[in-house]
């Protein structure tokens, strides 16, 4: 059960707290146990209509024709909505904060990009009538090539998933096809590391599966307003999104909610509110739009699957001297929140460890799968899993206890992070010490004496190193994906001044007109060649006891593996262990 370890960081905390550490009854608990808590669906309206959507059975197809005549005549049907009925039929969630381009229709126009994409909405007197009428909608599809793999999607010539982003990637800062992080010189550090290990990690999409499915009820109020009972986790986010899509002033929408039957991130996408409001507007009646369980499981956005490559340079004494990460978020067919997930992921790298050379390229790739979205630490959880499995592998390679290995490499207060911020309030060492104690896992006396408060920020640990830059991954320039270093920022550089010069010469993928966008133009200093100068890793405040070798790992029998990962080029003189290339050699 809950245990507050007040002995740790005692002087950093005021202990005269009125709530934390005390048992206080929640104000919503009486409603929960009496069944009186009102969720969005627990509201009765006279004359309430029910909305159901017809969804694409194809992952990618052109819509040749849609015939709604029979459905519109079916018993109880009040209205059938198509794309043209949606006032602003293209949106991206983060457009409310001016991030990203509108790319997703509420109802598909002339193409569908994932299995389950809404095409037609039917509003009827009863759910049964709406369900029966769905079967009467005739849609003629011309199936198109689809792409389901993030790396395949980024190859030139891959089927275009999302016309707004024709090269199948989200565009960052109007300049790069991925989110970048550069700190120090990983290549130089790899060259002088004792060992280099590279592994590939593949996650699956995860469905939130809230017990309450996504849904909302919209009803006309007086004065041309509409009341909306919503499952939304971010009520005003849903309000803003609905107002934009149905093109009304936001003060005409009265959203009621905040009581959510399980969300976990899956109720931020405004999956139902815009069409429910539109339905109430066009019928003048209350309209309820609720996903059934199958829709929730198959078409409610999941946590996006990620593919992560981690390459680490490791010294025999256990110090990690370089970490390079290449990651691909599977956004599915539309952006939703994947663009933000990649930023969160990048901000989290390289994990809670001090590593003097870090480089990462985090891509958001569009595939013909259900769009993915927020879920409990999205952007972080999967990469943390990959990083920690990698840490265990590194510990094994260094012949170190995995707990001691983490203590050795942990961030301490005052250490410089690759984002050029000093670490503060670090606590990994203490977490490891407490976890080891709880698990009766023996750690050395020296390991027990370590503290996040001491040893950090010493010498090189507080410095921003000279950092090698590259122009890799410019928007519309597939040829730049493998390009080499362009320049080296002097040590201590924390910011690059923006400039207004265009970055992209020529047409985007040969299709569009040249785009003039502002770029970040660093001063043209001379490119430093990648001199194979010996890299001397800085010392750690903690020298672990050597010689504790865990038992060798016995892999379980492998299931039939998917297509092998594409090979990447790496040249260095060190011993390499790689799951990408096979076994140790």
């Amino acid at each position, binding site marked *: 059960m809950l245990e507050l370890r007040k002995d740790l960081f005692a002087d950093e905390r005021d202990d005269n707290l009125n709530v934390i550490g005390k048992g206080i009854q929640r104000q919503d608990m009486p409603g929960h*146990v009496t069944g009186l808590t*009102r969720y969005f669906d627990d509201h009765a309206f006279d004359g309430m209509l029910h909305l159901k959507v017809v969804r694409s059975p194809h992952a990618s197809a052109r819509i040749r024709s849609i015939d709604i005549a029979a459905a519109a005549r079916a018993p109880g049907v009040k209205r059938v909505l198509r794309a043209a009925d949606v006032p602003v039929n293209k949106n991206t969630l983060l457009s409310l904060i001016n991030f990203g381009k509108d790319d997703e229709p509420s109802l598909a126009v002339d193409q569908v990009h994932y299995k389950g994409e809404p095409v037609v909405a039917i509003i009827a007197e009863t759910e049964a009538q709406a369900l029966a009428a769905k079967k009467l909608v005739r849609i003629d599809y011309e199936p198109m090539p689809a792409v389901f793999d993030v790396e395949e999607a980024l190859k030139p010539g891959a089927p275009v998933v999302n016309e707004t982003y024709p090269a199948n990637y989200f565009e960052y800062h109007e300049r790069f096809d991925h989110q970048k992080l550069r700190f120090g010189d990983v290549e130089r550090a790899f060259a002088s590391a004792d060992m280099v290990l590279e592994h590939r990690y593949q996650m699956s999409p995860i469905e939130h599966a809230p017990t309450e499915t996504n849904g909302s009820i919209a009803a006309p109020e007086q004065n041309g307003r509409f009341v909306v009972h919503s499952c939304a986790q971010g009520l005003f986010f849903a309000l803003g999104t609905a107002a934009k899509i149905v093109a009304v002033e936001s003060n005409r929408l009265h959203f009621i909610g905040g009581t959510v039957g*399980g969300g976990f991130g899956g109720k931020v996408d405004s999956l139902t509110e815009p069409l429910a409001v539109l339905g109430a507007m066009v019928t003048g009646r209350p309209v309820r739009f609720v996903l059934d369980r199958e829709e929730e499981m198959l078409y409610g956005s999941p946590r996006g699957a990620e593919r992560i490559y981690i390459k680490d340079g490791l010294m025999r004494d256990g110090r990690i001297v370089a970490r390079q990460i290449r990651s691909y978020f599977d956004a599915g067919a539309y952006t939703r929140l994947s663009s933000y997930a990649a930023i969160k992921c990048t901000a989290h790298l390289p994990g809670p460890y001090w590593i003097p050379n870090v480089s990462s390229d985090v891509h958001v790739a569009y595939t013909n799968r259900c769009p993915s979205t927020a879920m409990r630490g999205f952007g972080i959880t999967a990469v943390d899993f990959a990083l920690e499995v990698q840490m265990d592998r590194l510990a094994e390679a260094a012949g170190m206890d995995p707990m001691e290995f983490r203590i050795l490499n942990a961030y301490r207060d005052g250490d410089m992070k690759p984002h050029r911020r000093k670490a503060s309030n670090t606590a990994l060492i203490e977490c490891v010490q407490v976890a080891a104690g709880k698990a009766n896992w023996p750690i050395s006396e020296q390991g027990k004496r370590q503290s996040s408060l001491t040893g950090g920020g010493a010498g090189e640990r507080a410095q921003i190193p000279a950092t090698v830059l590259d122009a890799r991954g410019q928007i519309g320039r597939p040829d730049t994906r493998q390009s080499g270093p362009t320049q080296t920022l002097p040590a201590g550089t924390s910011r690059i001044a923006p400039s207004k010069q265009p970055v992209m010469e020529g047409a985007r993928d040969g299709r569009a007109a040249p785009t003039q966008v502002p770029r970040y133009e660093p001063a043209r200093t001379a490119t430093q060649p990648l001199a194979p100068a010996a890299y001397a890793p800085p010392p750690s405040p903690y020298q672990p006891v050597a010689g504790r070798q865990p038992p060798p790992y016995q892999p379980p029998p492998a299931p039939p593996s998917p297509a092998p990962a594409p090979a990447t080029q790496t040249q260095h003189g060190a011993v390499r262990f790689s799951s990408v290339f096979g076994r140790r050699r």
Partner: protein
Amino acid sequence: MAKIPVQFRLNGTDRAAFVDAPETLLNTLRRSLGDFAPKYGCGQGACGVCTVLIDGEPHLSCLTLSVACEGRQVETASGMADGPELHPLQAQFMEHFAAQCGFCTPGMLTAARALLDRNPNPTRDEVIEAISGNICRCTGYEPIVAAILAAAGSPGLRRA
């Protein structure tokens, strides 16, 4: 299609409704009778949030035809408290923090009540079995099991 009259006893009170022929008990309870304690969670019998007692036994109201409930006793979580006085299960759910989002709570309480009505002193395994058809996606099973065990054997249990 003509509506069909149905009468049954809901939480001790005779109620009547006009229903569509294939209408589920869940929809009749919620939309015609205003009892919102049973929830829609899956419509498949997988989640248990619509659990009600029919003649004292737990049933899934989303898979039960209303017309099949004619003349029967239906009980929901709405009928557990006696005015302001909570059922011991409700009190212990509060005490043990056995609800997070609260959406599974009415079904959990109903499933637990079916167990305690028949077996006032269950083992932990019997409690777990009794709620094995009810999903709590906020992953609060431990406090729920603790609350049910705490309510077991309490004097207020057998209150009609």
